[in-house]
């Protein structure tokens, strides 16, 4: 057996040993193992999830051989769940794989408590009625749920969890937390101690841009009162920077010019963060989660010690500098970050006491991680499927229906629901069998119109072309589409599961240092790393212009 660390090297570089440990603890249930479900699980088994349980009551037919890689000729007439399970086990012997030969609808109707044993349920190819029932069951049991469906050249992926709060999100582009426009005393002192007019050219070209910008901003303020705000002033400021260069090869000055927008940025917190601290959950009580207790402390900090700012992140980007300046700058940011953390920690402990909880019930390390990532907090909430289906946000729906970029995707959204109504009435999907296509088309059209009316979108219609295409699809589960839908579903599952665990008594430097995860029983929670998709992702296989629809 190869060292698991080597096998997982390429993914550990994304979610770390902690994320991997969370995957390896997860227990996943798959409903229906056609290509959509099989492909979802394939990606999860390769990544090393803890266990999988496949629920499917059907037998392998000839048609399955043409769209599902996990079955082959020898599987004909055997349990599909069994065949898929045995192939998946081949991919990774570290995963516990089992199967249950049973129709998911039967379990949903007769044995709802079955689902509470899992971390997460992947429900594929379910019709609306079963989706709604299963959603209720999983919410009740606090089990994460993700729906995936492939249908001809369309399909959908939708997550359903009550609330997913993310601390260690890893956004692609996020502004550094440098506080150039509002330096705290120690940063100002550091900058002032550096002479921008130093004669030694080597020293001059190794002044870090942070010091250049802080000093030049001060100089500007002296003559203008405020920082540059108009386009003209900003241009002028950059000219001033340029004029201070003593030779054309001074990368530090070039970086200062490129980074000057960081100086011009509006101080204070983002509107996203404002929304989180204004959330009613930030009014904490005895039943509040750790996340919201920390948000409450953050809110107090921003209003008091923070002076409108979140705690300092404490890390700086690479920049041209002498090693000495750079390391000192790093220490300076870390010290300020540590000081902010201590204030928040005190506030967290006080709040915990106030709401009748153990003041030490949230670890230092968790609070530290929270502080470091405070600007990037994310709260994802998912409306119950039943609510969305009965009362979708009408303004949103109407906006989508009349927006050219969205018209096909929202058309598919409506039609994916309409085919389920159709199937409930006529016992088959439109176009599922050959012959009678014209009748199916007109029936589907009537069904879709009545669905739109029920939703309150009277007068809005779908194009004939799209209705015809939907009938042509005839509920086909094409392999390539299933692999896309299953791929997206598996990626979202990983994002829901991956949490970063933090070594309990860790000091600043220890956070994020890698330990052999299986040797650390004293790991403690638990900050989620990734932001999953919100809304319903509608796949458009016609021209690939898929869309995320938010109907709540």
């Amino acid at each position: 057996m190869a060292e698991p660390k080597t096998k997982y090297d390429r993914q550990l570089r994304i979610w770390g040993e902690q994320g991997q440990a969370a995957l390896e603890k997860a227990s996943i249930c798959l409903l229906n193992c056609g290509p959509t479900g099989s492909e979802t699980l394939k990606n999860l088994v390769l990544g090393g999830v803890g266990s999988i349980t496949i629920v499917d009551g059907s037998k392998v037919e000839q048609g399955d051989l043409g769209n599902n890689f996990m079955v082959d000729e020898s599987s004909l007439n055997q349990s599909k769940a069994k065949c898929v399970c045995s192939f998946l086990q081949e991919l990774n012997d570290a995963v516990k794989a089992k199967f249950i030969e049973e129709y998911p609808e039967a379990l949903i109707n007769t044995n709802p408590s079955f689902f509470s044993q899992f971390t997460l349920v992947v429900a594929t190819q379910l019709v609306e009625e079963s989706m709604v029932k299963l959603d209720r069951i999983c919410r009740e049991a606090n089990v994460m749920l993700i729906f995936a469906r492939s249908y001809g050249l369309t399909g959908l992926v939708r997550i359903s969890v009550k609330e997913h709060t993310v601390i260690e999100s890893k956004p692609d582009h996020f502004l550094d937390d440098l506080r150039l426009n509002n330096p705290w005393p120690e940063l100002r002192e550091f900058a002032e101690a550096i002479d921008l007019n130093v004669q030694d050219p080597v020293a001059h070209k190794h002044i870090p841009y942070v010091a250049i910008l802080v000093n030049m901003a001060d100089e500007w303020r002296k003559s203008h009162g405020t920082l540059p705000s108009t386009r003209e002033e900003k241009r002028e400021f950059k000219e001033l920077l340029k004029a201070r260069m003593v030779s054309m090869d001074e990368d530090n000055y070039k970086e200062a010019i490129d980074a000057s927008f960081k100086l011009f940025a509006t101080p204070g917190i983002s509107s996203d963060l404002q929304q989180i601290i204004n959330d009613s959950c930030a009014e904490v009580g005895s039943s509040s989660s750790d996340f919201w207790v920390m948000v409450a402390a953050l809110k107090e900090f921003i209003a008091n010690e923070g002076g409108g700012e979140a705690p300092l992140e404490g890390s700086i980007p690479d920049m041209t500098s002498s090693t000495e300046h750079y390391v000192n700058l790093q220490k300076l940011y870390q010290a300020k970050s540590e000081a902010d953390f201590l204030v928040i920690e005190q506030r967290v402990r006080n709040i915990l006491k106030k709401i009748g909880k153990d003041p030490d019930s949230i670890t230092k390390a968790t609070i530290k991680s929270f502080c470091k990532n405070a600007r990037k907090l994310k709260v994802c909430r998912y409306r119950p499927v039943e609510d969305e289906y009965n009362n979708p946000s009408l303004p949103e729906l109407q906006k989508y229906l009349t927006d050219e970029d969205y018209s096909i995707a929202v058309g598919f959204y409506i039609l994916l629901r309409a085919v389920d109504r159709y199937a409930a009435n006529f016992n088959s999907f439109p176009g599922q069998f050959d012959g009678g296509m014209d009748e199916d088309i007109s029936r589907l059209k009537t069904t879709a119109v009545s669905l739109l009316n029920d939703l309150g979108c009277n007068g809005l219609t779908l194009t004939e072309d799209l209705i015809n295409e939907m009938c042509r699809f005839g509920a086909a589960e094409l392999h390539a589409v299933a692999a896309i839908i299953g791929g997206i579903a598996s990626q979202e599952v990983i994002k829901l599961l991956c949490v970063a665990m933090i070594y309990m008594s860790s000091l600043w430097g220890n956070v994020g240092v890698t330990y052999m995860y299986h040797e650390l029983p004293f790991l403690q929670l638990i900050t989620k790393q990734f932001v999953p998709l919100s809304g319903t992702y509608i796949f458009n296989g016609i021209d690939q212009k898929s869309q995320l629809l938010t109907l709540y």
Partner: protein
Amino acid sequence: MADAASTASESRDLDKLLLRPGNLVDPDFEPGTELRDALQEQVRVLVVGAGGLGCELLKDLALSGFKNLEVIDMDRIEVTNLNRQFLFRLEDVGNPKAEVAAKRVMERVKGVNIVPHFCRIEEKDNEFYSDFHIIALGLDSIEARSYINAVACSFLEYDSDDNPREETSKIMVDGGTEGFKGHARVIKPGFTPCFECTIWLFPPQVKFPLCTLAETPRNAPHCIEYAHLIKWNEAHSGKAFDPDNSDHMKWVYDEAVKRAELFGIPGVTYSLTQGVVKNIIPAIASTNAIISAACALETLKIVSGCSKTLSNYLTYNGVEGLHTKVTEFARDKDCLVCGPGVLVELDTTVTLQKFIDMLEEHPKLLMSKASIRYQGKNLYMQAPPVLEEMTRSNLSLPLYDLMDKVPKDILHATGTINKDNKKSSGLRKLRVVFKGIDGVTDMDMAGGA
């Protein structure tokens, strides 16, 4: 209609798309069993790369009705492939990827024939590539993409009005991933931008200045690159560093740790050392599956016409939430690879010197002091002096002879372009046609880069 479709058939699901007429389809779509049979029996698809994307592509194409596939890959299976390259098992480590991948897919999908090629892409001649109806790229390097793109574009012909001839356009679908992100695109040379038209989409690679490494290291990668690029050579005179040798890697790691301690820099780990030295791109199964399947779906739609086609570039970003976007990039009209180039008609007696003089007068070129390259070799170089001297004797020879007496081909000229009284240096593609040679028409080849 569609009586040949049966629920008992392996093409139960595909038949819905291939046998039934549709409204949102290609104008040339002709549904029916003939189309399905042609897809299975006649269409030949080449998959370039049998790694994370290639494994998925082979499976996806085999289950999308294609029965004649070939795959080319020079690599052998490694342990770190196993988290995503699902056709490989631990016991396959060390074996050629192309061979194992082909075997596994053939074992599971009845009637599919996959020919593996365990070799470098450059080892195959152009005829090999011209034999396929469509080429699917599952690559992880810019260089390899550039190479295949140049080969595919070399088949493209233009008519005398510089319009591309559609039947000579070798379509490629290309996928790429990094972590939770990826792209899928359709390249139809002459009609949509080729890889070189949009080469700017690939950001330049981060390279640290040597003086930073040597004098002012600030972070862990600086310490690692110091050990790898500077210290190694100092300590091992002449012995090349081998990134696959774990003793070598360990040595670099130890040296990087020492340097980091010296400067008080945190964060050097063995894993990071490997990542920096080998420029490892994180890769996961799900993203590869999504991107490959998008490429396979486009392949099916392009070949069959059963729906519209991606036009022409899809980006997928699952880093935060999920964002997908289709962008219609435009061709670079002056692209040296897929563009028509400038037509120059010559007598077989014209010398290289005369040819260079002509470029100065040519209204579409106005190029002075031109250096000329043909098929990668220098016919005449203006500089540096040593090359000028070496190539000077060619000036008096007929260009026709220097081009091995071919009736027509592509040359590249670099020189000073005098346009609107402004001088700039430029590289131009020239379509040279020799007058009075048999077999020459006014059509011409576009590629040959």
